[in-house]
Structure formats: structure tokens, C-alpha cells
């Protein structure tokens, strides 16, 4: 039904959409979790205190967003390469840094701008590659 080119274009736009959801749910989920954990302070090593932390509202919100991240990350990896998904979703580090700095009204240091530049260059470079390189035959082989 679809030509090879049509299929590649379809996968590419589907990959873009899922990458955005994966990144946003990860960044917001981790921020909420970090915020909650900071409010709780050192919680010790016992598994019970870790489970208790899950009932803190910010931690709970973080966990809900990270469940969304898990499901969309799994879906994305059902067709896209890990060596594509991992670097491309690293743009989340830039979003986290920028959001944090703008929310706190801090100026972004030279080192941070350098880091942002390197990450963005890396993400762009990997983003130019084909998202899925394991062909049907290769997928059969590893299953």
C-alpha cells in the first residue's frame, strides 16, 4: 500500500511526534520528582521510606509523568534504533537547564552555553540519520 519512500516519511514524522512526547514527559517528570525529593530531604536507605516518598504530591506527579514517558519510550523503541533515540532525546538536558535558569532568573554562564551548543550539535547530527536501520530481516535475526 505504501511505497518504501512513503513508509520512510511516515516513520520519520511518527518518530518526531513521539520524540517530542518522550522528551517533554521526561523533563517535566524528572523536574517534579527532583522538586519533591528536595522537599523530602535525605530519606535513608530503607525500601519502605522510598515507597512512602511516592505519596508526596510532587513525587506522585513526577511518577505519573514518568509512566507516560515509559509507555511512549517503549512505543518509540518498537520501531526506532536505540542509538538514534538515546542521543536525540538528550535535548531534554538542554530544556531542563534552560527552564531551571529562566525560572530562577539566573544568567546562563559561558560553560552552560557551551554545553547547550555541544548537545544541540550532537542532537542535530544524530537527527540527520535514518531513525530505523535494522531492516525487517535484521529484526527477524535478533528475535
Amino acid at each position, binding site marked *: 500500500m505504501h511505497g518504501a519512500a512513503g513508509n520512510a516519511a511516515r516513520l520519520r514524522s511518527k518518530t518526531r511526534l513521539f520524540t517530542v512526547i518522550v522528551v517533554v514527559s521526561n523533563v517535566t517528570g524528572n523536574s517534579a520528582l527532583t522538586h519533591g525529593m528536595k522537599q523530602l530531604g535525605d530519606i535513608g536507605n530503607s525500601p519502605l521510606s522510598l515507597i512512602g516518598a511516592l505519596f508526596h504530591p510532587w513525587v506522585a506527579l513526577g511518577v505519573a509523568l514518568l509512566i507516560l514517558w515509559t509507555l511512549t519510550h517503549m512505543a518509540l523503541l518498537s520501531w526506532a534504533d536505540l542509538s538514534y533515540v*538515546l542521543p536525540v532525546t538528550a535535548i531534554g538536558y538542554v530544556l531542563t537547564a534552560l527552564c531551571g535558569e529562566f525560572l530562577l532568573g539566573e544568567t546562563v554562564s559561558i560553560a552552560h552555553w557551551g554545553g547547550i551548543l555541544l548537545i544541540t550539535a*550532537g542532537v542535530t547530527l544524530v537527527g540527520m540519520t535514518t531513525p530505523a536501520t535494522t531492516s525487517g530481516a535484521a529484526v527477524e535475526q535478533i528475535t
Partner: protein
Amino acid sequence: MIKWLLVLTLIASTTIGDVARSRGMKKHGEVREFHPGAITQALVTLARNQWVILSTCAMAVSFFTFMRLLSIAPVSFAVPVSAATLIPETILARLFLGEVVDWRRWAGAGLIAVGVVLISR
């Protein structure tokens, strides 16, 4: 001491989690339908996928280790450490998952790893 034990656990569990998840999901095949019925169906199938089970266990370990690390170390330490998984995972993607990792992916992973260290200071 406990800090470096947590770092080691974090890197190992995240790497195993991501690689096993990728392998399990490739075995499952491309997810094409996203209505609630299809998602439930896929989750039921995935619950019996041994790679996905391994991945979920490893991710749970990774998640609690990261929470624990955040409670004893600053974010500026925990985040770059968690980004170190980029390198072993790219190597395993090529060797174990059979992905074509061309120079752009290697260079991209390297640039990002350095960038994350800079951004976390």
C-alpha cells in the same frame, strides 16, 4: 563510598534497561494502533515478553537508585553521571542490537556526553 556504589548501579541498570527494552520492543514489532483497546492488548502481550520484563526490572532499579542518589548528591553530579550511559549503550546498540552506528551517531553521542558535563556544572 555509597555514592560510587549508587553510580555503578545506576549506570549498569539503566544500560541493561534501555538495551533490553529496545530488543524486546523490536521483537514485539512496530506499535501502530494507539486507541485504548490496542494499548491494553499490546501491554498484555508485552507482559509476557522476557526482554521487556528484564527491562522493566532494571528500570525500576535504575529509578530508585537515581532517587536515592538525588537525596545524597547534588543534581550537578547525578545528571552527568546518568548521561554516561550514552557511551556503553551506543556500543551495545551496535554489537548486540545490530544497529548501523555511523560516524554521525558516534560523534553526536560524544558531543552530547561532553555537553552534559558542561551544562551540569
